[in-house]
């Protein structure tokens, strides 16, 4: 179903992106293309740059060089000559906001707005960014809350919800904006083990409907079952990429990947 070949037009095109925090190079010339409808899982040891890469895609972090395009539009910078010569111009605040509205993001720590109800969390972007009426936004919010199994919690505050429920609201908040691409940043890492399943079930159903997703995850089994491709990152670069079966194969020749998987299996199975 999902396209995996590299010559189909890419929805997300990350080209030679590099970034440093001070003297630490967190991303080294990372390139990755994601086609519409693809589900890409990004795995790798902590500190490998996975989360930073994801945060660059909606420009929560800036990057030093290279380009990130969604639907062939550069994310954080205005189109112009000589991107790498220091002449790059950051998009205006308004432009950036508009670009970010095209990508949805779900956070490890949920980041629900604690002063708004579940429905209110979803409605905020719909009314203020999409310009929908309150009534319309409310019905969209209720629709998505129903989709994540929380129709009855529409008027609950985040503090009244369990972690799993909060994260499902977090997903609903992101997808209600009808983003072109959904970014998931270790969305189950902060959850108690018994709550992970309910959140992954929601992600799986979104994948089946053709939502384009890039997810940073530690859930190897989920990455294997739900993604069309797996990207293995190490030391700020893409170390291996391919279909789950290939990347997760025990007999891989990639030294780094083998160590990572071995360590992972030792601690998780």
């Amino acid at each position, binding site marked *: 179903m999902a396209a995996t070949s590299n010559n189909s037009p890419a929805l997300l095109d990350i080209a030679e992106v590099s970034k440093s925090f001070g003297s630490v190079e967190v991303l080294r010339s990372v390139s990755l293309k994601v086609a519409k409808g693809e589900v890409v899982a990004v795995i790798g040891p902590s500190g490998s740059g996975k989360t930073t890469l994801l945060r660059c895609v909606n420009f929560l972090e800036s990057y030093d060089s290279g380009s990130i395009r969604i639907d062939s539009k550069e994310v954080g910078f205005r189109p112009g000559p000589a991107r790498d010569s220091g002449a790059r111009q950051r998009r205006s605040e308004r432009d950036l906001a508009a670009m970010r509205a095209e990508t*949805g993001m779900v956070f490890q720590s949920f980041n629900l707005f604690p002063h708004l109800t579940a429905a209110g969390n979803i409605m*905020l972007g719909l009314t203020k*960014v999409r310009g929908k009426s309150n009534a319309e936004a409310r019905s969209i919010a209720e629709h998505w809350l129903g989709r994540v199994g929380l129709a009855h919690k529409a008027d609950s505050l985040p*503090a009244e919800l369990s972690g799993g429920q909060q994260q499902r609201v977090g997903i609903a908040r*992101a997808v209600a904006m009808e983003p072109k691409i959904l970014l998931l940043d270790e969305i189950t890492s902060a959850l108690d083990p018994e709550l992970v399943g309910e959140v992954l079930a929601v992600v799986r159903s979104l994948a089946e409907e053709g939502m384009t997703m890039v997810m940073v995850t530690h859930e190897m089994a989920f990455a294997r079952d739900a993604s069309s491709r797996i990207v293995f990152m190490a030391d700020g670069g893409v170390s291996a990429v391919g279909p789950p079966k290939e990347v997760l194969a025990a007999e891989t020749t990639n030294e780094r990947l083998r160590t990572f998987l071995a360590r992972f299996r030792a601690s998780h199975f």
Partner: protein
Amino acid sequence: MLGQIAYALPFLAEGFALTLWVSLLVVVLSLIAGVVLGVGLVYGPAPLRWAVRIFSDTIRGIPILVLIFFVYYGLPAVGVHLQSFWAAVLALTLFKIAQVVEYLRGAVASIPKGQSEAAMAIGLTFRQRLTYVIFPQAFRRFLPPWINGVTDAVKGSALVSLLGITDLMQAINQVIGRTYEAMPLYILGALLYFAVNYALSLASRRLEQRFAFIRE
């Protein structure tokens, strides 16, 4: 003795009213200016941040009485003539602004970075993020210490008596000057200040409980 004090009650009431009026002015003016400068301190460009930081640290580092004298005696010397009432209000307000700035900074700083990021991720602009996400939350954390600090404004207002303004403190001193009933009048004054401030601190405690849910 009681007769003499009863005779002075209307005069004391006027002083008390002035104390409340000065306090109210200071509280309202400092709230407006303090919030503006506080936002400047948190989100402004570097020169503004530095200016507010220096202002706040200087004001909070000197006695309020020195600030009152500085403004009252210093402004006329450089050609600015204010009625003593407004000089007093200005000095107390400057002092209170520094407090409000710090409360605001603290309230905004206590909001996790993830809130801002989540707001960015759904495409809210800077102003929208402040209006719909940051301020509603910061407000709940700002309010209790701020109301608590209102008592400081009421207590600080007693210092304006030193500029010859007939607030409650000055009214008491004047009545004592005529009746020589020092102890009963000071106690009466203390009870009046206490009544106002205690009511304020009870209110702040109640608000704190009411907003407790926000801290998860």
